[in-house]
């Protein structure tokens, strides 16, 4: 086993896959700087910078995937998908259905997501629920370095479009680039176990659509992804001292959802709390309640999500994003 930072793990897995598969190419804005380590290993033919033209280069990535390449298209932030959503919504997601299952677009879209460092409401969104709403897209949201690398490998082997979301609070390089800018005068609530951890010597794919328990618990099942998993674990630790046993399930994949594991756990605990950094309305948290209801499970339910546009001010942002205190209060209420 080795130890790696979050983004280091993703790039390491990507490097392993690129060495094995010459069809994999990377492109996006500022890639020569951001992926410089891969650039000096694989050369400028496979690692290239793009203009600030997301509609063009993401759309091109989709078609390049349809015609033999395995592109990893990188966006500066998932928020910027707003500029070029057509490529995913109307093209990547539709090819397989429109062609009667005969053609797919195996493109990986890699994008930083999430907040907690004061960049405001246009640069800190999660948006996985918005993306997962579209049939035909696979959405991955890892929460540890080992999963990040393993899921990147799985994404590269998958035969359809995959959106790979890299939470900036877990990413040593993104947080340095966008949050601190080299300063030591700012602090962020980085979950240590998500930012750095053990990874395998040789990467193996982590299966898409498989959730994993980060903590077993019998009184309540907390379901989350990304940084939310770590916030849930912090709250679960406090609750344990108060005699409440909270299980934490890390979905890892938002679409397709691991419905089986969710239903089994909630059927046993009788309580479901969704911790979702994405927007509350019409998203993952509501979807999970539908999943358990459709399975005929009756349970107590609550959610801790982001309800409004993310404010710029750090102290306001800390209250808006799911935090340990809100999760704790919600569980106390559910277990009363």
């Amino acid at each position, binding site marked *: 086993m080795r130890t790696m930072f979050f983004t280091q793990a993703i790039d390491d897995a990507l490097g392993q896959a690129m060495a094995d598969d010459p069809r994999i190419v990377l492109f996006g804005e500022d890639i020569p700087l951001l992926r410089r380590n891969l650039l000096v*290993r694989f050369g*400028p033919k496979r690692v290239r910078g793009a203009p600030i033209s997301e509609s063009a280069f993401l759309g091109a990535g989709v078609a390049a995937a349809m015609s033999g390449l395995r592109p990893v298209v990188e966006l500066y932030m998932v928020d*910027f998908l707003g500029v070029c959503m057509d490529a995913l919504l109307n093209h990547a997601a539709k090819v397989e259905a429109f062609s009667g299952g005969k053609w797919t677009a195996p493109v990986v879209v890699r994008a930083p997501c999430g907040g907690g460092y004061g960049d405001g409401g246009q640069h800190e969104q999660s948006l996985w629920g918005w993306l997962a709403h579209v049939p035909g897209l696979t959405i991955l949201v890892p929460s540890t370095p080992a999963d990040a690398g393993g899921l990147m490998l799985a994404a590269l082997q998958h035969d359809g479009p995959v959106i790979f979301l890299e939470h900036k609070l877990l990413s040593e390089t993104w947080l340095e680039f966008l949050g601190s800018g080299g300063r030591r005068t700012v602090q962020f609530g980085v979950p240590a176990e998500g930012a750095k951890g053990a990874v395998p010597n040789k990467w193996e794919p982590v299966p898409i659509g498989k959730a994993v328990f980060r903590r077993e618990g019998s009184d309540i099942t907390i379901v989350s992804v990304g940084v939310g998993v770590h916030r849930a674990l912090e709250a679960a630790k406090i609750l344990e001292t108060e005699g409440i046993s909270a299980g934490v399930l890390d979905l890892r994949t938002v679409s397709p959802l691991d419905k089986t594991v969710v239903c089994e756990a909630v059927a046993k605990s009788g309580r479901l709390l969704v911790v979702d950094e994405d927007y509350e309305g019409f998203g993952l948290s509501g979807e999970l309640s539908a999943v358990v209801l459709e399975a005929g499970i009756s349970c107590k339910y609550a959610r801790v999500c982001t309800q409004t546009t993310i404010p710029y001010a750090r102290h306001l942002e800390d209250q808006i994003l799911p935090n340990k205190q809100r999760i704790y209060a919600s569980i106390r209420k559910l277990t009363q």
Partner: protein
Amino acid sequence: MSLDLWSLYTLMLKSRLLEEAIARFWYDGLISGEMHLGTGEEAIIAGVVAHLRDGDAMALDHRGTSALLMRGVDPVLILRELLGYEDGLCGGRGGHMHLFSKEHLTASSGIVGAEGPTAVGFALSAQYLRPGAIATAFFGDGAMNQGMLMESINLASAWNLPVLFVCKDDGWAITTQSKQVTGGDLGERARGLGVPAVEVDGGDVSAVWEAAGRAIESARSGQGPTFLHARCVHFEGHFLGFQLIRMVRAPFREMPGITIPLTLSFLHSGGAALHERLEGLKAVLAAVLATLRDPRRDSANDPLRRARTTLQSDTARLEELEEQVEKELSNVLSTVLAGGPS
């Protein structure tokens, strides 16, 4: 209106001093996240904004503090916004990339190129509701490759809208040199869409003022949009803490963290042949070398210094003015900091 270099210099100096104060707040950790300063582009902003009047609108990019200040927004409100205070310009909700002033018909966006559609919309409503008023869009050369901006230039042309498109060209698109990702000539693009393009030295505030004045007059009188292409430098690069500039300014502190993984990766088994790896290394080094040679390191490109050279003919007046502006800013800072978070 005749050219008044003294007032243009005052606008630029106020902006420069305010942004230097913002930089100190940022380094002290009082401002989180990114911080894009407009230091170096003041001549472009001043030369355009000095022509604006009630009813005119502005669509700003992620670097909009300077334009808001010059347009007359209270610097105390701007600073308190950046510090995240409830009584800041936008209640601490927007931050420096999302500054809004309804009163000045001014909207900002952190989405590159979004200034295009916004300015076109402001100009459209001006056509109906505020005849003679115009809209300006400020954006960088990187934004010129964004589809929505190119579409907006065409839309303004097709609908003959009173828009001034201002391209602040510093040669960089974030950390990428624009010439590596841009085809053709920017002025030709605008002309190809039927919009007159004017080239101007963006470091010369008088030249910008003259060119912007003609373009704005033309828009006010129903002659449609103009594309103003002004070259400039950004002393701090894309944003404060810009990695390439840090590397050049403090190589011994910054280099090990970059060169060690780079070398290990260059030597890593599995991957391209040596000549491809060398091409990759050359590309990385080219960005560093370009930063070393960057004109932003040359103070001769400072628009304030250039304006000052002319004004030095009246040293007494210049000193008095500078003292006055510095005193005003010092008062602003005392007010801002005395209040604390509300």
